[in-house]
């Protein structure tokens, strides 16, 4: 069974608001490095952090993250 790579639209959503990685990190209580790691797919956020991101951007988790499966949008 292969490892599922989760993709996300975090960089796009952040850019739409003109936020830096540090700005987003401060708003959700994580470091700039954490935001960068999530954006580049090197770190999959925990469920609580995914919910915080979803609330911050006013979107559902599936609108931000997808694993390329049936519900994937990419």
């Amino acid at each position: 069974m292969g490892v599922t790579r989760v993709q996300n639209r975090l960089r796009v959503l952040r850019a739409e608001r003109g936020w830096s990685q540090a700005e987003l990190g401060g708003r959700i209580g994580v470091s700039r490095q954490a935001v960068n790691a999530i954006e580049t797919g090197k770190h999959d956020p925990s469920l609580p952090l995914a919910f915080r991101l979803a609330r911050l951007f006013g979107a559902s988790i599936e609108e931000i993250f997808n694993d390329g499966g049936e519900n994937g949008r990419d």
Partner: protein
Amino acid sequence: MMVAKMGATEGAASGEVLERNRRRRKFWIIGTLFVAGFVGGFTAGFTQADDLLDPNHFWPPALAISLAAAFLVVVIVGAIFYGRHLDEFEKAAKQKSVVAAAGAYVLVYPVWLLLWKGGLVREPMHFVIFIGFVAVMGLAKLFHRVR
């Protein structure tokens, strides 16, 4: 909970300010730990400089007890305070680095011991093994954070 907290402070401080403050608190904790470690190391080095690492030379019990107690307090209290400022990404990197260091220990120590038993190398030095453990942990943490 965190969202509500963030929302409440949004007006007063931007995310960048919050992130900068968080980084600053971590810096002060690390700085304090560094100073404490330096004071302990300097005390041991200054008073026992001639035979610092000689296995046959014993330190005064009072000095040994003081340093051990100071080490325990600083490391435990420091880890608690520092841990409060780590996010999940940093915690994950920390866990991976500990696993890497443990893996290195499990490989290095038995090999060193066996080679020593064969008369090929000198007896394993616990001090070197400890320093190696910490060094591997630091390198692995750096790798996981910047890769």
